[in-house]
C-alpha cells in the first residue's frame, strides 16, 4: 500500500513540474538594461542600472593572472594585486618626493642583496646581513612618509564595503561596493591607482605574501595537495606554477619586476570595468571618459602560446602528512569557450553536484566510503585548456584506494550508457536556477558579467547560457565522457595519513 501512495506522490510532483516548465523566465528584461561602451583608450565599460537600493557594486577585471607570471617571478601577478592597494602619487604619502628617494635607495640595496645571493655558496654572509640591515633602515625611512593603507581607509571612511581583490591563474579582479553617490569617487580612485600606482612598501609586503603562502599552502595539508596536484597535471603550460609564487621567487622578485608586469598587462584594452547598481549609464559614461579615459594605452599583450602537450601517461602524486586522506583526480578538457564545455559541465553536474549525483549516491549514500564527493569542470583555470576534476573526502577508516576504485567504476558506467532524459532535464533545471540565483546580488552579477566578458567570450553569453544548456542531449554527455575521461590522461593526487611517530 505504502509504495503505491508514494508513487502517486511522485507523479503529482512530476505534474507540478511540467505545469511549471511552461512559464520560462525571460532574461532579456535584464539583458536589455545593460549598456556597454568602449572608451577612446580602449577600456570596455559595462553598466547595469538597478535602483533597488541606493548602492552600486564595482568590478575591474584585468585579463592577466598567475599564468602570465614570467619565469623566475612566479607570484608577481599576485604581488601586483597587493601593490594596487598601496596607493598612488596622491594617496598613501605625506611627501612623495622624499618617499621616492628612499624607495630608490631600497631598490639599490635590494639589487645588491640579489647579486650577492646569486653567488650561491660563495656569497658573503656578513655582507648580506649588513645589507639586510640597510634595507630595513631604508624601508623605515621611506615608511616615515607613508600614510599606511590610506587607499583602503578612504574607501572605508566613505562607506565602501567589500573592498578586495583576487588573482586567479586567468584574471585579476578588484571589487567593492559604494553608496551610489560615491560613483565619482570610485572613478577617481580606480583611475588613479591604474594610472599612477606607487609600489610602496614592496619589500615588506613580500613578507606578508610569504605569510599568505604559509597559511594557504605550507601549513595546510590540503593546500599542499592542491599545489602538488596542479603542478603534476601541467608540465608545459604555466598553470603548472604556484599561483601565490614559489617561496624563493617571492623572496627574489623586486619592485621593477612588478612595475614592468603592470605596464605590460594593465593596459585599457586588456581591462574591463563593470558597474551594477543605482547609477545612470549616461552619467557613468561621462565620468568614465573623464577619469578612466586617462589610463594610458598600450599594445594588447599577447596570449600564452605554450600549449600543454597531449598527456600520454597517468600521473600520480602522494602527499604524506599528519592528516586524514583526500583524493583528487583530473582529466584534461578544453578551454571555456570550446563547444564541448556545456556538455562537460552537464557531465560534472550529473556525476558530482548535489545529493542525487552519481558520486554522492555511490560513494556517500550507498557504499559509505566518503563524506564528500564532487565533480567540477574548469580547474585550475578556464582561459586555456583545463581539467575535469573529481574530489573525494574519505569517511573515517576508509581509504583513498577504496574511493578511487568506486570513482573509476562510476566513470566507466557513465561512459557506457546514455543517461536518462529526465536526468538531463534535471541538469537543465538546475543550471537555470543557478543562473537566476547568481543574479540576486549586485556584486555577484557584476562579477559574473566581468568574468563572461573576459574569459567566456563576451558578457551577453551570460544571458544566453541557457540556450546552450537547453541543447544538450544524453548523447553529448556520453560522447564527452568517452572523449575526455581517459585513464591514460589522468592525474591523481592523494593526501595520505602519515604514520604518527
Amino acid at each position, binding site marked *: 500500500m505504502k509504495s503505491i501512495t508514494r508513487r502517486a506522490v511522485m507523479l503529482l510532483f512530476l505534474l507540478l513540474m511540467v505545469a511549471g516548465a511552461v512559464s520560462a523566465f525571460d532574461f532579456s528584461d535584464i539583458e536589455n538594461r545593460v549598456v556597454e561602451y568602449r572608451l577612446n583608450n580602449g577600456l570596455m565599460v559595462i553598466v547595469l542600472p538597478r535602483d533597488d537600493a541606493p548602492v552600486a557594486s564595482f568590478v575591474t577585471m584585468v585579463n592577466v593572472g598567475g599564468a602570465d607570471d614570467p619565469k623566475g617571478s612566479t607570484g608577481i601577478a599576485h604581488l601586483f594585486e597587493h601593490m594596487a592597494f598601496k596607493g598612488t602619487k596622491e594617496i598613501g604619502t605625506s611627501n612623495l618626493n622624499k618617499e621616492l628617494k628612499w624607495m630608490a635607495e631600497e631598490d639599490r640595496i635590494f639589487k645588491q642583496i640579489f647579486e650577492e645571493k646569486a653567488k650561491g655558496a660563495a656569497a658573503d654572509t656578513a655582507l648580506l646581513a649588513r645589507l639586510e640591515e640597510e634595507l630595513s633602515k631604508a624601508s623605515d625611512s621611506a615608511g616615515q612618509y607613508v600614510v599606511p593603507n590610506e587607499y583602503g581607509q578612504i574607501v572605508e571612511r566613505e*562607506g565602501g564595503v567589500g573592498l578586495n581583490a583576487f588573482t586567479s591563474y586567468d584574471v585579476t579582479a578588484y571589487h567593492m561596493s559604494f553608496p*551610489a553617490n560615491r560613483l565619482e569617487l570610485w572613478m577617481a580612485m580606480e583611475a588613479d591607482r591604474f594610472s599612477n600606482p606607487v609600489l610602496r612598501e614592496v619589500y615588506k*609586503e613580500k613578507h606578508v605574501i610569504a605569510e*599568505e603562502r604559509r597559511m594557504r599552502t605550507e601549513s595546510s595539508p590540503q593546500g599542499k595537495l592542491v599545489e602538488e596536484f596542479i603542478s603534476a597535471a601541467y608540465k608545459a603550460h604555466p598553470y603548472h606554477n604556484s599561483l601565490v609564487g614559489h617561496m624563493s621567487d617571492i623572496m627574489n622578485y623586486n619592485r621593477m619586476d612588478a612595475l614592468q608586469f603592470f605596464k605590460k598587462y594593465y593596459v585599457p584594452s586588456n581591462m574591463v570595468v563593470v558597474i551594477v547598481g543605482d547609477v545612470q549609464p549616461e552619467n557613468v559614461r561621462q565620468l568614465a571618459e573623464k577619469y578612466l579615459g586617462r589610463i594610458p594605452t598600450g599594445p594588447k599583450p599577447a596570449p600564452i602560446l605554450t600549449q600543454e602537450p597531449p598527456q600520454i601517461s597517468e600521473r600520480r602524486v602522494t602527499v604524506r602528512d599528519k592528516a586524514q586522506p583526500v583524493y583528487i583526480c583530473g582529466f584534461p578538457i578544453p578551454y571555456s569557450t570550446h563547444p564541448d564545455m556545456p556538455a562537460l559541465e552537464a557531465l560534472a553536474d550529473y556525476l558530482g553536484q548535489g545529493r542525487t549525483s552519481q558520486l554522492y549516491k555511490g560513494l556517500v549514500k550507498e557504499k559509505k566510503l566518503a563524506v564528500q564527493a564532487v565533480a567540477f569542470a574548469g580547474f585550475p583555470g578556464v582561459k586555456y585548456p583545463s581539467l575535469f576534476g573529481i574530489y573525494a*573526502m574519505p569517511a573515517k577508516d576508509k581509504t583513498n584506494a577504496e574511493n578511487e576504485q568506486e570513482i573509476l567504476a562510476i566513470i566507466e558506467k557513465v561512459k557506457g550508457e546514455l543517461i536518462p532524459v529526465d536526468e538531463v532535464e534535471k541538469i537543465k533545471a538546475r543550471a537555470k536556477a543557478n543562473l*537566476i540565483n547568481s543574479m540576486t546580488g549586485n556584486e555577484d552579477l557584476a562579477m559574473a558579467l566581468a568574468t563572461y566578458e573576459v574569459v567566456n567570450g563576451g558578457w551577453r553569453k551570460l544571458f544566453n547560457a541557457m540556450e546552450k544548456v537547453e541543447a544538450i542531449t544524453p548523447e553529448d554527455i556520453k560522447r564527452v565522457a568517452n572523449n575526455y575521461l581517459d585513464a591514460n590522461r589522468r592525474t591523481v593526487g592523494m593526501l595520505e595519513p602519515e604514520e604518527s611517530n
Partner: protein
Amino acid sequence: MNRRFFTILFVTVFLVSSALTVFGAQKTIDKIKFPPLNEAKMPAIEKVVLESGLTIYLLEDRELPLVNARVRLAAGEYLSPSEKIGLANIMGEVMRTGGTEKMTGDEIDAALEAIGASIEVNIGNTSGSASMNILSEYTDTGLQLLADILRRPVFAQDKIDLKKTALRSGIARRNDEPLDICLREFRKIIYGKESPYARHTEYFTVDNISRDDLVAFHKKYISPENAMLAIWGDFDKNEMLAKIKQHFGDWPKGEGKVPKLPDVKYDFKPGIHFVNKDNVTQSYILLGHIGGYTGDPDYFALLVMNNVLNSSFGGRLFNNVRSKLGLAYSVGGAYTSNIVYPGVYYSYCFTKSESTVKATRSVIDEIKRIQTELPTPEEMRMAKNGYLNSFVFNFEDKGDIINRMMEYDYFEFPNDFLFKVKANVEKVTPADVQEVARKWLRPEALQIVIVGKGAEFDEPLTVFGAVDSIDVTIPTGEKKATAEVTPEMLAKGKQLFALAAKASGGVENFKKIKGNSYKAAMNISLPQGEFTFESNSFNLFPDKSRDVIITPMGEMINIRNGSEGWAKQGPAVMPASAEDLDDAKKDIFRNLLLAFQKAENPDFSIAYIGTEPFKGKSANILEISSADGSQSFKLALDATSHLPLAKMYFGQTMTGPGNLTETYDDYRDVSGVKIPHSVLVEADGNRLVELKIKEYQINPSVDESLFSKPQ
C-alpha cells in the same frame, strides 16, 4: 579633569583638524562633491501571527522569479544532553534527509534537484533554521515539502547512520588544519570546555544518540511556538499568506517554549596555551577573553573601538602588524557582543614560526595602546564614517532586512534598533573609545592560544607565563558517557545482568567453563566482495586462543598466548602487533562466557542505561565497566527473553580502531548453557563478518602445544 571636559576638548580638536585636512587638501578626490544619495526604500514587510503562535513575515520582491524562505527555529545544540552532544545537529540534518510520512529522503532529494531548488535544515549552538530557495513557479511544491520536513519527518535509520558517519569523519579530521584547532580550543578556554557555547562532539557522544532521541527532540522543540517564518520574493502577499495558512495553519502547538540559553561564568585570568604541530611553517595565534552584550550602553562605542583597532584597511592591527612589520597576512579581531549571552573579545594573527612571540607581543601592544593612546581625529573619522556611510548597505538585500526584523522580534529588541545604533555611533567621541577600551579590554588577563611548531619559535612561550600544553589527541571512544550513574541504574543493571546469566544457563554452569572450540563458516565483507571461509577456533580461558581460517591460498593461523601472539600465513610467521595484543587483552574483559562467571564480582560495574529498540526488538541496554573505568562495553539484552542480543564496544577493525557491534542469534544449548550460533559483526554500521557456527564444544580436550609459536 572630568570626562565631559575631555569630550569637549576632543570634539574641538577633531573639528579643527578635520577642517585643516579639507583646507590643506591637494588630492584630486577631495574636490569631488557627492550628489545626494537616493533614499533607501523601506520595503513593506507584513507580519502575521497565527493562532498556533507561528509568526510569519512576508516581503514581495518581484525582480527575479525566486522565492526564499527561512524558518527560524529556537532549538539549538545547547539543548542536547552533555553525553549526547550532536543530537540537535543530527536531528536537524535528518529532518531533511531522513524523509517524511509521504516521501523518502532520497525522493525529496530527487524532487528538489529536479527543479533546481534547495531546502536545508541546520541546527546551530543557540538556534537553528530551515531555509528554502526555489524558482517561484514551484512555490507550491516547495511549501508542501518545507511543511512536511518541519512537521512530519520520519528520521529513517539509514540517514541517521549516514550523518553519524559524517560526524565521526569530521571528528577524525578535526586536527588536520591548525586554524580549526586554534578556534576550537580558544572557545573552550573562554566559555569552559563543558559549556554549550564551546563543547563539541566526541565519538562516544555521537554513538550515544539513537533515533528515539531524535524523535523526542523533534517532538519537544520543533513546534510553532518555537518557530518564526520569513518568506520573500516573487509572490503576491495575500496569495502567499493563504498558502502558508494551508500548510502551517493546523500545525498543533507543542510542549511550550524552549528553555533559556544558559549563563556564562567567567573569571578574568591570564593563560598561555600551546598545541604543538610539527607539519606547519606558521603559527596560529588567538588571544582574548570574554566579550559583552548587545544591549549594553557601551555597545556603540565598542563598535567604533573595533573599527579603530581591527578595521581591515587602516585599523591599528592591520597597519602595524601587517603593513609596517610585515609579520602577518591575516591579522585582526573584534570585541563581539550577543543579545542573551556574552560574546568574546579576540585578536588573531598568523605568523611564521620564527616570529611567533614577536607577533604575539605586537598584538598585545596594540591592545594596550588602544587604552592609552586616544584615537586620532583621522582614526575616528575612518571608524565612525565607515559605519555611518556604509549604513545604507543594511538595506541592499531583502533577505537581510526581513531576517533582521525576525531576529529582533525573537529577542524582543525594538525593530528600529539599527537606527538607534546609527544615532549612537554618531555621538561616540575619542574619549568614549578610550573609556570603553579601558573598561572592557583586559590586556593583563589575556588567554593566549598558539598552535604551531614549537621547535622553531623565536623565544619560548614561557615568556608569557607557565605554558599549558593542550593535548588534542582525539579520545578514541572508550571514554564512558559522562552521565552520572545513579545507584538505581547500578541496581537495575545488576539485576538485569543476573537475569541474563540465568536465562543463558546460570552462573554455576558458566563457572565450569574453562575453554571451548568451534567450527564455523565465516562470511567476510571486503572491498573486493564477500568471501566465505571455514574456520576452526580453540580457546583456553582466559588468555590462550588459536584461530585457523582455511582459505584457497592455504591456512591462516592466529595465536594468542598470554602476552605473546603470532600470525602464520604460508611459511611466514609474524609476531602480533601491539594493537592486536592490547585488543586481545581487552577481549578477555568483553568475553561474555567469562563475564557471566563474574556476575557477582564487585569490581564489575553494571549500569542500566535505558530501554531502546534494537533491530526490531525491545532491548535493555547495560554498560559494563571495569572498576577503574579503563574498559567497558555495552550489552543489549532482549527485554523479554533476557538473552544477549548484541554487544557493542570500541576495538580493532580491519582499518584501525572503530565501533564494533556483535549481534547474536540462533541460540542453542551446549553443555547446559545457551550459545548463539550466528554472530554478525559490524564496524561503524558496516557489515564486517558473519559467523555461522557448525560445531561447538565446551571444555574440549586440547593440546597446549596448539598455543605455542607456530613453526
